[in-house]
C-alpha cells in the first residue's frame, strides 16, 4: 500500500504500530478461539468418557445381577454354606464366572467376610494355579467400597487411578434375606480404558491438527490479504515519484470523498525549461524531490496525486479557507526555500498552487477540480511561485 522508503519516520512508526496492533489482535482472537474450542473439546471428551464408563459399569451390573440370582436360586438361599461344603457348587459357579470373564475382566471372583470383618475368597475364575485364589484364602479389601457394599447391599464401583493394570473394580452383593452374604468382585482391566483412550487420542490428534491448520490458514489469509492489498494499491502508484497517479483519483479517491473537502492543484514553474536545459534526468529528479517534500507535509488522511506531467493534486478534508491558505503557503515555501541539487546542478524550483477550499461532494468532482485549476491559472498569471484560491 505504502512505499516505506518514501515514508517519513513518524508515518513509518505509525504504520508499523498499526501492523503490530493488527497482528496482536489477530493473535488474541486466535488464542481466545483456541481456548474456547479446547475447553469445549475437553468437556465433550470428559462427558463421552464418563458416559462410556457408565455404560460399561451398567453392563457389568446387569450381568452380575443375573449371576447373583442364579447363585441364590441354585443354593436355595444357602450360598455360603453350600459353596464352602460342596465342591460341586464351587466347580459349577467357577465355570459360570469363567464364561462371563471376558478378556477385559482381569479378575472375577466371589469373596465373603467373617464376623471379624476379614475377607476370604469363596470362588475364583482363575485357572492358573500360580494366580488362583483358593477357597478361604485371605482377600485384602483395599478401599472401603467392599464394606460399603456389605453395609448398603448395593453394588459399588471403585476407580483405580494411575494403576498400570486395573481400571475399575466392581463389587456386586449377593443378597440373601435382605442381607449381603458375599460379594462378586470384578477387576476390569485398564486395557479397555487404554483402547478407549487410544481412540479418543486419535480423535484429539485429528482435532489438534485441524486447529493448527485452521490457525495457519487464518494467518496465511491475513498475510495474503495484506500482500494483495499492497499490490492492488501499488498499481495506482506512479513509478517515478511513488505517489498515486491520476487513475487512483478516479478509481478510488472519487468514491470516498468527504462531504466537504479541499483540492490543491500544484504545478512546477518553468518545468519544461528545466527539462530542456538540464535534461530529463534532472527533470525526473526534480519531480521526485518535489513530491517527497510535499509528502512530508501532508497528513495521513490526505492524498497526494501526480495529476499529470509536472502537475500534482492534494486532497484534504476538514480544513477551513484560512488553514487551506496556510497549508498551501507551507508547501510552496518548502519547495522554494531550498534549491534542488542533482549532482553538480542546483535548481531553484518554485511551484504555483490553486486552491479550491470549498469543494463539496454534492457537486460534480470535475467542477471542483476545474475551480482549483482555474485558481492555479490565476497564480500562473500572477507571476508564479504563489497561491491563489478559487472564488
Amino acid at each position: 500500500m505504502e512505499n516505506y522508503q518514501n515514508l517519513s519516520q513518524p508515518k513509518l512508526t505509525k504504520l508499523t504500530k498499526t501492523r503490530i496492533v493488527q497482528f496482536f489482535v489477530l493473535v488474541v482472537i486466535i488464542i481466545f478461539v483456541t481456548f474456547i474450542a479446547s475447553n469445549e473439546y475437553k468437556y465433550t471428551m470428559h462427558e463421552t468418557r464418563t458416559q462410556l464408563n457408565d455404560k460399561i459399569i451398567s453392563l457389568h451390573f446387569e450381568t452380575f445381577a443375573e449371576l447373583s440370582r442364579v447363585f441364590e436360586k441354585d443354593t436355595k438361599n444357602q450360598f455360603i454354606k453350600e459353596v464352602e461344603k460342596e465342591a460341586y457348587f464351587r466347580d459349577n459357579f467357577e465355570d459360570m464366572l469363567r464364561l462371563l470373564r471376558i478378556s477385559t475382566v482381569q479378575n472375577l471372583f466371589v469373596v465373603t467376610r467373617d464376623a471379624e470383618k476379614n475377607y476370604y475368597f469363596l470362588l475364583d475364575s482363575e485357572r492358573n494355579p500360580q494366580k488362583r485364589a483358593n477357597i478361604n484364602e485371605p482377600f485384602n479389601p483395599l478401599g472401603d467400597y467392599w464394606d460399603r457394599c456389605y453395609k448398603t447391599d448395593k453394588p459399588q464401583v471403585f476407580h483405580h487411578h494411575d494403576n498400570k493394570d486395573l481400571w475399575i473394580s466392581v463389587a456386586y452383593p449377593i443378597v440373601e434375606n435382605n442381607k449381603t452374604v458375599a460379594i462378586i468382585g470384578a477387576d476390569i482391566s485398564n486395557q479397555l480404558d487404554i483402547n478407549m483412550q487410544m481412540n479418543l487420542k486419535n480423535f484429539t490428534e485429528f482435532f489438534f491438527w485441524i486447529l493448527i491448520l485452521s490457525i495457519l490458514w487464518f494467518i496465511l489469509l491475513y498475510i495474503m490479504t495484506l500482500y494483495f492489498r499492497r499490490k492492488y494499491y501499488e498499481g495506482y502508484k506512479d513509478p517515478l515519484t511513488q505517489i498515486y497517479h491520476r487513475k487512483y483519483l478516479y478509481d478510488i479517491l472519487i468514491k470516498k470523498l468527504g462531504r466537504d473537502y479541499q483540492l490543491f492543484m500544484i504545478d512546477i514553474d518553468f518545468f519544461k525549461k528545466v527539462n530542456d536545459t538540464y535534461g530529463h534526468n534532472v527533470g525526473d529528479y526534480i519531480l521526485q524531490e518535489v513530491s517527497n517534500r510535499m509528502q512530508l507535509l501532508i497528513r495521513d488522511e490526505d492524498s497526494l496525486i501526480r495529476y499529470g506531467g509536472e502537475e500534482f493534486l492534494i486532497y484534504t478534508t476538514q480544513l477551513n479557507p484560512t488553514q487551506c491558505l496556510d497549508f498551501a503557503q507551507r508547501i510552496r515555501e518548502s519547495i522554494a526555500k531550498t534549491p534542488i541539487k542533482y549532482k553538480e546542478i542546483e535548481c531553484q524550483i518554485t511551484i504555483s498552487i490553486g486552491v479550491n477550499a470549498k469543494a463539496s461532494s454534492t457537486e460534480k468532482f470535475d467542477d471542483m477540480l476545474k475551480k482549483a485549476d482555474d485558481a492555479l491559472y490565476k497564480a500562473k498569471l500572477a507571476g508564479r511561485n504563489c497561491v491563489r484560491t478559487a472564488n
Partner: protein
Amino acid sequence: MKYIIFLLITLSTILNAGDSHWEKMIIEKILQSVSNQKELSIYTQDDNVLTMLKGIKNIHISHSCEKADFILAKLDNNTLCNKPELLFSYNEYRRTPSAIGVFFWQKGRPTIRFSSQRLKNFGLHVDGELSKFVTAKAY
C-alpha cells in the same frame, strides 16, 4: 492404621513388579510390628529378599539360622531351625507351622496375614496398625 492402609493402597496402585521400594517398606513395617527389639537379625536363603533387605535400618542379615530373630522366605527342606518365619506365599504359609505371617500378592492386591496361634507359640504379638491382619485361622 491409616498409614498402613495408605501404604497398601499406594502399593497396589503403583503395582510395579520391578519397584521393590514399597514392598521393602511393607516388610520393614511388618518386622517392626512383630518385634519390640530395636535391632533385628534376619536369616534368608532367598537372594531377592536379601537384595531387598539391604539398606533397611536396624535390620542385620544373619548368616546363621540359629542366631537370627526371624526367617524371611521359605527355607530349603534340609535347614531346620525353630524360628518364626515370614513367608511370601499363602500356600507355604498354610503348610508351615512356624510361619507366623505372610505377605503376598493376590489379584493385584498386597495381602498380609498373621496367625494368632503361631504368634503365641513364639511368644510374639503384633502391635499397632497391623494387628488388624491377625486371624485365628490359618487354613
